[in-house]
């Protein structure tokens, strides 16, 4: 299995070779062999030794092809890459944007303080559509692509959560 770690360009290959006696496994990561010894595991949390280094991993979110974690206190996303994911990625690029791409979502929880664009108008990527307020700061939510602003799904005063759909751009 190939893994894409964070923004690193090179993929890392990872596989388990064999288990040894004392609760260790021998793994091959990035072309080299390492000993992986699990010390403690709980719900979504692992403490392990990779060769002679101690590591702590907390799994935050597991998607079909990616794992969001805190590794040694640092947030990191690891994407699993198989032949299947490659095929799917190519297909979506050719077929144009899927339904999910129409939605302009909020990256943060907050309150809508200003609607900065008119539904039915043409917008360009980067245009401010909605302004949210959180922690006494104002954050501008910008259009993620060019297109027609079909609909704004919130109004002034609405409270939004992370990933809520704010507007639809086609």
């Amino acid at each position: 299995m190939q893994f894409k770690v964070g923004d690193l360009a090179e993929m890392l290959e990872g596989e388990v070779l064999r288990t040894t006696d004392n609760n260790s496994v021998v793994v091959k990561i990035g072309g080299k062999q390492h000993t992986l010894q699990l010390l403690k595991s709980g719900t979504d949390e692992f403490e392990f030794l990779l060769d002679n280094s101690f590591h702590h991993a907390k799994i935050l979110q597991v998607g079909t092809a990616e794992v969001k974690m805190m590794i040694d206190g640092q947030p990191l996303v690891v994407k699993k890459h198989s032949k299947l994911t490659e095929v799917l990625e190519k297909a979506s690029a050719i077929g144009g944007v899927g339904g999910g791409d129409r939605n302009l979502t909020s990256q943060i929880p907050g309150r809508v303080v200003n609607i900065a664009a008119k539904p039915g108008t043409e917008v360009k990527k980067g245009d401010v559509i909605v302004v949210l307020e959180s922690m006494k700061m104002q954050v501008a939510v910008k259009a993620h692509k060019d297109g027609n602003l079909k609909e704004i799904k919130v109004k002034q005063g609405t409270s939004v959560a992370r990933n809520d759909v704010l507007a639809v751009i086609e």
Partner: protein
Amino acid sequence: MSKKITSILIANRGEIALRVIRACRDLGIKSIAIYSDEDIRAVHVKRADEAYHIGPAAPAQSYLNMTKIVETAKTAGADAIHPGYGFLSENENFSEMCDKNGIIFIGPTSKAMELTGDKMKCKAVMKKAKVPTVPGSDGIVEDMQEAADIADEAGYPVLLKSAFGGGGRGIRLANDEKQLRQEFEMASAESRAAFGKAALFVEKYLERIRHIEFQLIRDSHGNSRHLFERECSIQRRHQKLIEMSPSPVVDQKTRERIGEIAVRAVDAVDYLNAGTAEFLRDPQGNFYFIEINSRLQVEHPVTELVTGLDLVKLQIGVAQGEELTFKQQDLKMNGCAIECRINAEDPFYEFAPSTGIVPNCNLPYGPGIRVDTYLYPGCNVSGYYDSLVAKLLAWGRNFDESRIRMKNALDEFMIEGINTTIPLYKTIMDDPNFIKGELSTDYLERFKILNKMREDAKEAAKKSAKAAVAAVLLQSGFVRKTEAIHQSSMTKSNWKMMRG
């Protein structure tokens, strides 16, 4: 007029409320906390001797609700109110309300606050006291000719500022008289359209400036002392990020000279209690007074670390009418202290606010490390209040020791559940310009620090890459006999394994 304070209501929340509570406990004073709906499980509520609910989450209905707070103070029998910083700390009406209700306000008099709150009036008072101010108009400029005359005297480039509309709005730059004329026309029109009148003033534009402030304390007997400087040049959108003492460009002679000027400034406004005189320093070494902050500031621990003083205890003492016991020459600067403001913002995503529960956190410890925070495992970081979640301080015998201690403390600091600005500070601690002391208020842009931070994150990801992959192998069950490992590591103890 001396009154012994036996109980204090803290009109604030978060880390500063906890700070004041700690000083109260040190002095055997009863601490009374207030909290909104949002803060019912906050640490300051847990630590205070008594806690009173004062309203819903929104600040206007809780921490800014003067009437409710004074009412609560009377119900609770508080002798005094400590306003912390922000909220009502510089509100002269609140200070007066406390006076009228026989409650000691731990801070300056409402009269002094009114004066320091009006920048133009304050500037005029400073000029009289021969405190150097930013060259420019003493008040509103009547017409273009006056603006041009003042600009000539102050020297271009100049800023044209609107007397109304704060927060950086209505500030225009003019590099010569022709540009000034153009900007004046536009600014006047804008000002008239928005506020009905064209109220502008002219100020010399200082470039490559450092923000250097002096901590001050003045008692009710007229004794003023300065507690040295803090350099706060590293900022973003006029919000301080890092503060330190001493400043890399302030030697003992300068410290004494500007300290004496700062003392003159607080004397000129008949100030009371703790405050800070802010200066801008140009690359030629000239200091210009800009304003007095009439409150205890966020960065006060920096001064506490290099002087050994407890500023909150000093505030309480002064509020009780006590006279300062130390002379200016008794004070000595010891070592170097740096503070990093840890904010719940994502520095990789335009500093977007980050809120929610912090399931777990690991605070740094060790020699010279101090953390002022309201965080604890399971606490809530709310979107109703500001984004400061912790102040991380490092003291060392010299700058390098404090810088390296800070770097390592940042590595130890782990906060789960929210994004924080910790990665930004890690990059800055290793930045050669920071190490050289090459600071100015445009430091972040000047040295492209955010780009460096992204590069550093890539390097860090490289180091953790293999461990991350190992974690995924463990998580996705690629490791066969994972079940067996779970069982054995949880049921058997190490002793048994060794014997077996």
